[in-house]
């Protein structure tokens, strides 16, 4: 599709790996670019972004925000997903030479991720989620929140670590943080006896990370229904992209969503190029072929 090609043409170049056009490259946009290019058949071009991520990887395996800002390390999960998705799609001689380096970077990132963790908070009456479960935080030394936990779970699943105790606890945490009527927000549920409101993007991210998990809670089904109700042609780009990832992960992609993606891409481009959002849309267009969806049979063995 032409709108996808137009976006991919842009993100082939490092100038497009910033959060906005003309800004310095950053890890999240570069990781999304690497994944999108590789998954859309441009693995060699995706390798450029994947290599840049390797360049900014710290000694401890973490990936910071960009070349100058080495922490926090929450973008490490996205870098792992990018390295894995490019490595598996490379062909020919480069598949061996570059692939090995990408997998080594991914292994080092994984080592860091397995050490990184959110802070436990003593159980209390004010906050009703289980504050003792450990997932991943945005910033070292703070509580676990949903998106960093979901991204870490996805990255570890892509490394074949679905059964790892950290992944199991991360899954438990995510289910615990789903709202009683479905959906989730950044990661609080009931505070001071008031049930908080859901947001589409984190609901989609969490559903994506819960792919392949047993449907152990009715809240997962309620979350799927919430996302189905919330996505549509007017949905903003990253919420739409993550919402559709969440639905695709559970075999629930709505009819006609391809046209929503195209419409969203046009609106986003018109408002000023936010390339990470546009890149996310191209990933969502892949359905279950998106590198962000780690179906059980696709998980690599470390």
């Amino acid at each position, binding site marked *: 599709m032409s709108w996808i090609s137009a976006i991919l043409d842009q993100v082939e170049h490092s100038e497009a790996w910033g959060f906005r056009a003309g800004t310095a490259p950053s890890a999240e946009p570069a990781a999304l670019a690497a994944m999108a290019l590789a998954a859309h058949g441009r693995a060699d071009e995706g390798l450029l972004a994947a290599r840049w991520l390797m360049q900014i990887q710290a000694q401890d395996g973490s990936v910071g925000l960009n070349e100058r*800002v080495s922490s926090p390390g929450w973008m490490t999960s996205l870098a792992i997903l990018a390295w894995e998705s490019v490595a598996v799609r490379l062909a020919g001689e480069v598949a061996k030479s570059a692939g090995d380096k990408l997998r080594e970077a991914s292994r080092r990132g994984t080592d860091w991720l397995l050490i990184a963790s959110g802070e436990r908070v003593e159980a209390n009456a004010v906050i009703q989620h289980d504050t003792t479960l450990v997932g991943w935080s945005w910033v070292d030394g703070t509580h676990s929140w949903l998106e960093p936990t979901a991204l870490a779970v996805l990255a570890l699943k892509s490394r074949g670590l679905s059964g790892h105790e950290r992944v199991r606890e991360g899954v438990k945490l995510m289910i615990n943080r789903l709202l009683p009527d479905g959906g989730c927000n950044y990661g609080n549920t009931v505070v001071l006896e008031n049930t908080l409101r859901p947001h589409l993007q984190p609901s989609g991210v969490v559903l994506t990370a819960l792919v392949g998990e047993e449907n152990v809670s009715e809240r997962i089904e309620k979350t799927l229904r919430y996302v189905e109700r919330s996505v549509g042609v007017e949905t903003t780009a990253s919420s739409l992209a993550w919402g559709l990832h969440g639905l695709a992960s559970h075999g629930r992609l709505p009819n006609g969503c391809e046209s929503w993606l195209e419409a969203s891409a046009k609106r986003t481009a018109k408002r000023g190029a936010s390339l990470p959002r546009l890149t996310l849309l191209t990933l969502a267009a892949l359905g279950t072929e998106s590198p962000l969806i780690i179906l059980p049979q696709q998980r690599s063995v470390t």
Partner: protein
Amino acid sequence: MKQPNEKPQGANSLMASINESGGSPKVNRRSMLVAATAAGAGVFGIGLIRNALIAKSPVFLAAGQKYDGRLVETIREGLIACGLQPELLRGKRVLLKPNMVEPRREIRHMTTHPAVVRAVAEVFQRWEAHVTVGEAPGHVRDTEMALVESGIGEALDDDRLDFADLNYEEVGWVTNSGRRSKLDGFHFPRSVLEADLIVSLPKLKTHHWVGMTASMKNLYGTLPGIKYGWPKNVLHYAGIPETVADINASLPKTIAVIDGIECMEGDGPIMGTPKQLGLIAISLQPAAVDATCARIMGLDPSRMKYLHLATTSSGQISDRRIEQRGERWQSLATPFQMLELPHLRELRAG
């Protein structure tokens, strides 16, 4: 702009003197903004003790305001009444910082109304300042959604105003000038560091942890999510009152225009209910206007830790140190409903 991780100069050095054209004296931002008031009071050259005795923080209150009313005129008059000198804003970079914490179109009492953003932008544009609207929504990663749901995105499109997504900009380091928390400094986004003046445009709301949120707490939204997370949990761990005071002390010059027309009471800042007040509150000193709004809400500002901590750096909070302009707060006082919690009961006036 300073490079990220480049250490440290402090926000005050970012507010380096502004050399006015036409051979007029070199003034820094603080002197520029308070010159009219200070000169009128004749405080230059007088000793610090005398200065402390006579200097008051002007706060302007306008009641009976409506979102479809004469907001531009009200805000312009209020800023001038507080001592702002419009002619000194020509060519300056002014960053407007509304509250878009987690907007929903059906809950307009949670976030700054677009009409207030538009009106303030028009005031500063007429004064020939370069206006940008910027925000780092605290609870949502999808800033585009926040713009759409708040209605601010449409307003910006209509008025062709620039928006800075402060969650995702390049960052620079500023030393913590407040030193109330354990944080050594802050990573502020480029648009914040490059601003000559920041205008905090909060929604007036109750806050279930610290009592109220207005112009000072709103500035949590100047810190980028990519460094501090969603929510900005780093700040919670370092103490909300302490970091509110520190952020305000470390930012470039900040003034406040508060949207108190439709407010939030009860379980604010997210889950509360609407409270009609019809108020626009303005000051060049955020602590002073926040303290005045606290009094209107039935709270005692001297019992609110973040205001107490910020007194010296961000303005006066004692009623006798605040010079009221426009309406008197006593005539507008209307207690806001608060959650029945011990730490909030302690904040009640009387």
